[in-house]
């Protein structure tokens, strides 16, 4: 992590100060249903060694405030990757965009304009971005995780 931070500092000196305060890492897992120890099917998370259409992915974001001061106005934004459909499940507090990040809101409040000009309620698969806006500052030294689920199209 230190090397990564150093590289980031070299590549983008202007961001170095910020990087010293908050770090953000992203991980992706595949969720599969496999027989558990008791023989019953159980959901297990695996490293994404094999990924094919239809696989369920979990995107997990881990943040840490490494600075000496609280981080205020803290928000995490993750564009849903191409070839992935948002699966309707995200950590509490998420808001969504279905128009590339221009407008945001709870999914139930969003609409998609159809080709004929009329609009319909947005579906999970319409989501282009997911965001968590934290109402409270992240204290110095604090960390946390949020996640959302997607399906490989």
């Amino acid at each position, binding site marked *: 992590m230190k090397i990564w931070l150093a590289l980031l500092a070299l590549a983008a000196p202007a961001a170095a100060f910020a990087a010293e305060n908050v770090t953000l890492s992203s991980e*992706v897992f595949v969720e599969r249903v496999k027989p558990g120890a008791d023989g019953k099917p159980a959901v297990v998370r695996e490293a994404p060694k094999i990924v*094919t259409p239809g696989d369920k992915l979990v995107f997990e974001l881990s943040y840490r405030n490494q600075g000496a001061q609280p981080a205020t106005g803290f928000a995490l934004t993750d564009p849903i990757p191409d070839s992935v459909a948002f699966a309707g499940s995200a950590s509490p507090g998420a808001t969504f965009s279905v128009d590339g990040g221009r407008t945001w809101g709870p999914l139930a409040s969003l609409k998609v304009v159809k080709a004929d000009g009329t609009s319909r309620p947005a579906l999970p698969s319409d989501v282009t971005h997911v965001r968590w806006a934290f109402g409270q500052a992240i204290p110095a030294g604090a960390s946390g995780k949020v996640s959302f689920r997607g399906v490989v199209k």
Partner: protein
Amino acid sequence: MGYQARSAKSSAFAKNALLAAVSAASAGMAAPAHAAGTLAGTNITNVATATYDLPNGTPTSVDSNTVTLKVDELLDVTVAWRDPADVVSAPGLAGQVLSFTVTNAGNGPESYTLGTIANGGGDDFDPTVTALFLDSNANGAFDAGVDTAYVPGVNDPQLAPDGSATVFVLSTIPLLAADGNRGKVDLTAVARTGSGTPGTSFAGQGEGGGNAVVGATGAKAQDDGWYAVRKASLSFVKSATVADPFGGTTQGPGAVITYTLTATVSGNGSLANVKVSDAVPAGTTYQAGSLTLDAASLTDAADSDAGSFDGTAVSVGLGSVAAGTTKIVKFKVKID
């Protein structure tokens, strides 16, 4: 939520949103409606961004690491018999054509080894498969001399995702097949990269350098194609009635015998070149002009009508007779 206005002003966030908008637009254009989903070799890339305020109040942002997943190749195939109904044939006929469609149900280009199973049971006879042909001119119909004979390992059809090919199976129907019998041939297709239990993976053998993974079909498929035999058969019955010159039925000189030849074609289909002939018995004389077919008179000369008398025998050509038809030929002789 006051920070939203601040982060919207952040150049880093604005850039991020712009990039996102561009990528969303390209996704909309590029999203091909592949039944098998995202094409093998496609990268799924995820980067998240944290935005927050520096202690001096300046909004700033930091990107996460980039996670890149390569979509692996699913190996899937379907085979479907495409003739609308049983292919009607007859015993002994060669080059009888069944048509099949082989479809790549996976998400990467794949070649398939084709084969046939003619002795799978569940039918009345086993056709003899003589050749497989690929529909070279893609017109859906077998064209002898145009379509290419299939040679396993040499011209295995390579199909794009969702792509399909028409394959023809040519068979000979066994001579012993009876009317109404049905016989089937299965066309089989197996992904060349590998097949087996769904989930079996072949490291590094997928499109774009990823893995290849056997999908739900097991990467092999087959379907039955059916032949139905239509066979007609001929039964022939001869009967006679006698009329003596005195109104009785005594067989003696001067009595007239009326022969009735009944030809019945049963089964299915038709019989070609059916000909009824009967020699006039010794000691009798054919009665000129007495030959009839289904009660219609025929001339004795070998001419445009179907019947003739050549001096020793009568003959009636019936041509092609459909199953379910009965033809009645009558002629008269007088006992010498």
